[in-house]
């Protein structure tokens, strides 16, 4: 809206005031983005209009644009519809089922649910030689079969050497220690067991050979200074009773290992006073040994360990000490029984594995 007055009729102040008014009106129109047709002949009004339009272009999109929501935390549950999550669950479930099944089968077969994993643990831990955080605990839980076999072989060699040197007692003691160690006895290979049996037979032979002169077959009494002359008398009285008391110093100081007397349980009942005990540990019934002991009970004191029909029943000894290979089974009673000590209560049916026949 322009002033229609003639500029020649206006004062300078009036002219300036009108120009200010006119520009104020123009700027108000520009500010409100109204139509500029009233200022069509004003070049600066047109370019300012273009300027304002350029500023406003796309402004609605910018102003009204919704800000994106903050991303959800990564820990938030995304739901169970994810295929990757389902695959993970399936893998975990399958693994758990396989592990439990393997452990169950192993527990049923071997009694040890962890046995399938011991080899894995051994491989992972570097063949069992890698030190772990608690080596003592690991070694306690997982005994090393290799070291066990080596220990058994070493003890057998020592026993063999002792036997070669004539130290039957030492050899027997070593065998007893082997038998006493239940951990060793549980995991032995058949070859080692055979070696132990053979060594036991050799020891028994040696003991029988030494003790056969006096008919008692006890290796203890043949030791110098250990035997009691009275003992010989006692043994020669044809009582056939091996439970007579022995005097101190007869070499009965060795404690009988667990289960030792369950197989070589000396029993009297023989008629000729000879003591023939068969300590076969393989014949569960002991019938063969029993019969053979009876048949061979001629009082000669010779050992009856021919070994026919299975393991040799070479566990005969005098003085009531009947040594067979100790049983390593679960029933290992009579811990406190001394080796070489006569059975205090001879049992009539004690010859399940061997018996003394007098």
């Amino acid at each position: 809206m322009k002033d229609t007055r003639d500029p020649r009729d206006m004062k300078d102040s009036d002219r300036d005031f009108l120009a200010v008014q006119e520009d104020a009106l123009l700027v108000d129109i520009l500010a409100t983005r109204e139509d500029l047709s009233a200022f069509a002949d004003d070049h600066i009004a047109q370019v300012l209009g273009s300027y304002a339009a350029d500023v406003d272009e796309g402004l609605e999109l910018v102003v009204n644009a919704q800000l994106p929501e903050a991303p959800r935390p990564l820990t938030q549950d995304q739901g169970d519809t994810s295929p990757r999550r389902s695959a993970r669950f399936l893998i975990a479930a399958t693994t758990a089922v396989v592990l439990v099944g393997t452990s169950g089968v192993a527990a049923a077969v071997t009694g040890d649910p962890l046995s399938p994993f011991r080899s894995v643990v051994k491989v992972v831990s570097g063949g069992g030689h890698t030190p772990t955080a608690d080596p003592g605990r690991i070694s306690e839980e997982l005994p090393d079969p290799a070291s066990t076999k080596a220990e058994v072989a070493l003890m057998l060699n020592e026993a063999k050497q002792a036997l070669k040197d004539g130290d039957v007692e030492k050899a027997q003691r070593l065998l007893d220690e082997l038998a006493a160690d239940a951990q060793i006895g549980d995991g032995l290979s058949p070859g080692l067991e055979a070696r132990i049996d053979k060594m036991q037979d050799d020891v028994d032979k040696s003991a029988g050979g030494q003790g056969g002169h006096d008919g008692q077959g006890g290796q203890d009494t043949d030791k110098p200074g250990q035997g009691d002359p009275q003992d010989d008398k006692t043994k020669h009285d044809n009582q056939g009773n091996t439970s007579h008391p022995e005097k101190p110093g007869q070499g009965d100081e060795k404690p009988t290992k667990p289960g030792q007397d369950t197989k070589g349980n000396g029993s009297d009942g023989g008629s000729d006073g000879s003591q023939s005990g068969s300590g076969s540990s393989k014949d569960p019934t002991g019938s063969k040994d029993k019969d053979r002991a009876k048949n061979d009970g001629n009082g000669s004191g010779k050992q009856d360990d021919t070994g026919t029909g299975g393991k040799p029943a070479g566990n005969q000894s005098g003085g009531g000490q009947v040594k067979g290979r100790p049983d390593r089974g679960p029933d290992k009673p009579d811990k406190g029984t001394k080796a070489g000590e006569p059975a205090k209560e001879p049992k009539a049916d004690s010859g399940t594995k061997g018996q003394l026949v007098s």
Partner: protein
Amino acid sequence: MATDVTATGGGAILHRTENGDLRDLVARAAHGEVGAQEALLTHLRPMIVRYCRGRLGRSPAADFAADDAAQEVLLAVLHALPRYRDEGRPFEAFVFGIAAHKVADVQRAAFRTAIPTADVPDGVDLALGPEERALQSGDSHMVRMLLDRLPENLRELLVLRVAVGLSAEETGRALGMTPGAVRVAQHRALSRLRIYAAEEVTA
């Protein structure tokens, strides 16, 4: 808060907020009231975007720069709110002071940054065609060149009045002037623009 939204032919959106309500809104926002802060930023956002566009232009290189600068201004205002104390100076002056510094930062950084290439739009572009855009951009470019020749106070006044769309009273509050002084100053600025434009045509 009384907010008047006026839409004109160009699609412009003008927000008008009564001064008293704006002061109360700013006070509540400064005390940390989330709703007040959101309302205040909503009120400021169109003005800030226009200001940045008016100062930085809308060439392909500076289009996003202006919008980004506006966002930076709003963030700066939000961060500065807890430290804002109403000492009689209008809040608009505080906001446009921040905006002026941010625009200056963008102008300095524009010389050192790469120019991103816009993606090809997937839909139909209903905006101005290339010829119209060239003419408009030509006019806008010429206006910015003329504005750059003005003294800073006059340039700021014209940007607030024309680009941002503030009234004489609002511009006066932002620049610490009376509405009458704003009108006289804008008349002086337009007179100089006409002289500069005549010089450009002659040249």
